[in-house]
């Protein structure tokens, strides 16, 4: 590789950095995620929508109620994240929260989270619960507030701008090793939901725990996710979004792109680093770089979605 190309790459990287701290744009073309610098993507090329018009923003792992050393002010960092979203030149059509809204499933935590999230200029909010939201036996607190869309089942689907969204719940039963579970009822519902749908429909699937195994000893995966992927494989563009692990990890498998989002609350260790997946204490000036949100835009409607991660600093 020549120095010129290296230099050019570095310039591109710097342009990316300029967008939103550690923001990176990925364009999904023919099922392959390709990093593109935002200055290039912002040009009005034929067939390309401006990435400044995001379809939706993903917020994850807000853990309202957490107050330990790793971040004594999770309400503050959620507010900062909301400010970033509200400052986007064009507002996303909807917001997706991929769970762990609260830290301990307490009513006061849910109330505060709802109050903070109501500060978003975009009012359409879709949620799935994390295991921190469902620690009460009957999941009463979560479903009382967010159960309507799914009739208190936790899974549901909807369409927006030609994209089919599927919200799944994988935190109610666990495999013995700790992996999440979708369960046969939910998998049967997905099959029925996808039946007759054109393979050219872009699909966005979101759930709290990763729908692919990132690190089994910490339960960072979903035991029966393979049965879900088998149903999604025929589609030309599938984007799978998760939270839970408080860091960005990506994988591309055929036409399926997997992405886990940063938390807005606190970072977690790299897989296997330390005794368990607890809050990771980092230097105060490093924390904002490890928190943030993801946004997804339609880049080449209706077949391509672009994904951008934005850190708080």
């Amino acid at each position, binding site marked *: 590789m020549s120095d010129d190309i290296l230099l050019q790459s570095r310039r591109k990287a710097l342009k990316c950095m300029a967008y939103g701290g550690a923001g990176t744009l990925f364009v999904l073309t023919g099922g392959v995620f390709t990093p593109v610098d935002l200055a290039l993507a912002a040009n009005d090329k034929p067939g390309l929508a401006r990435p400044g018009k995001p379809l939706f923003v993903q917020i994850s792992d807000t853990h309202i109620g957490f107050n330990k050393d790793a971040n004594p002010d999770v309400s503050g960092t959620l507010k900062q994240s909301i400010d970033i979203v509200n400052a986007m030149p064009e507002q996303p059509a909807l917001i997706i929260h991929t769970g762990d809204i609260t830290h301990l499933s307490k009513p006061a935590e849910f109330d505060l989270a709802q109050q903070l999230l109501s500060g978003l200029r975009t009012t359409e909010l879709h949620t799935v619960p994390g295991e*921190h939201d469902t620690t009460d036996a009957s999941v009463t607190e979560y479903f009382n507030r967010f159960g309507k869309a799914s009739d208190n089942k936790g899974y549901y689907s909807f369409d927006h701008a030609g994209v089919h969204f599927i919200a799944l719940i994988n935190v109610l039963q666990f495999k013995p090793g*700790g992996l999440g579970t979708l369960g046969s009822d939910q998998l049967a519902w997905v099959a029925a939901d996808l039946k007759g749908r054109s393979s050219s429909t872009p699909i966005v699937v979101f759930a709290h725990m990763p729908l692919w195994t990132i690190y089994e000893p910490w*339960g960072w995966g979903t035991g029966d996710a393979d049965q879900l992927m088998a149903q999604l494989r025929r589609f030309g563009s599938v984007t799978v979004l998760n939270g839970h692990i408080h860091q960005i990890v990506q994988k591309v498998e055929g036409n399926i792109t997997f992405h886990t989002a940063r938390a807005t609350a606190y970072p977690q260790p790299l897989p296997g680093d330390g*005794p368990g997946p*607890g809050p990771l204490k980092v230097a105060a000036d490093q924390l904002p770089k490890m928190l943030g949100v993801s946004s997804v835009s339609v880049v080449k409607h209706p077949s391509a979605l672009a994904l951008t991660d934005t850190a708080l600093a």
Partner: protein
Amino acid sequence: MNPAKYPKLRAAASLTLLGLLATAYQAYAAPPAAAQIEIKNFMFTPNAVTIKAGSTVTWSNKDDEPHTVVSDAGVFRSAAMDTDETFSFTFDKPGTYHFTCSIHPRMIGTITVE
């Protein structure tokens, strides 16, 4: 100091004494009448406890991460315990009780009630 705290202190002291006696007693023959399980570094310690029917087990969370204690058979279930919070359950019926942390289900333990 708040006088209301004194009974708690006395109770704690009696519990400690009871614990010591129980430990001494156990050395001779029988299982302890009460047991403590600490939750630290995503583990129950000890993760297997034997007690007599009628005894109480107390779990205490020493992690910065919340944990729960949930019986596999649905016999007992704690709320999410934050740092330094505890949960107690009294076992009246003999049997084997498996439990997990519902937030981190790879954490497992067993209570044997004789």
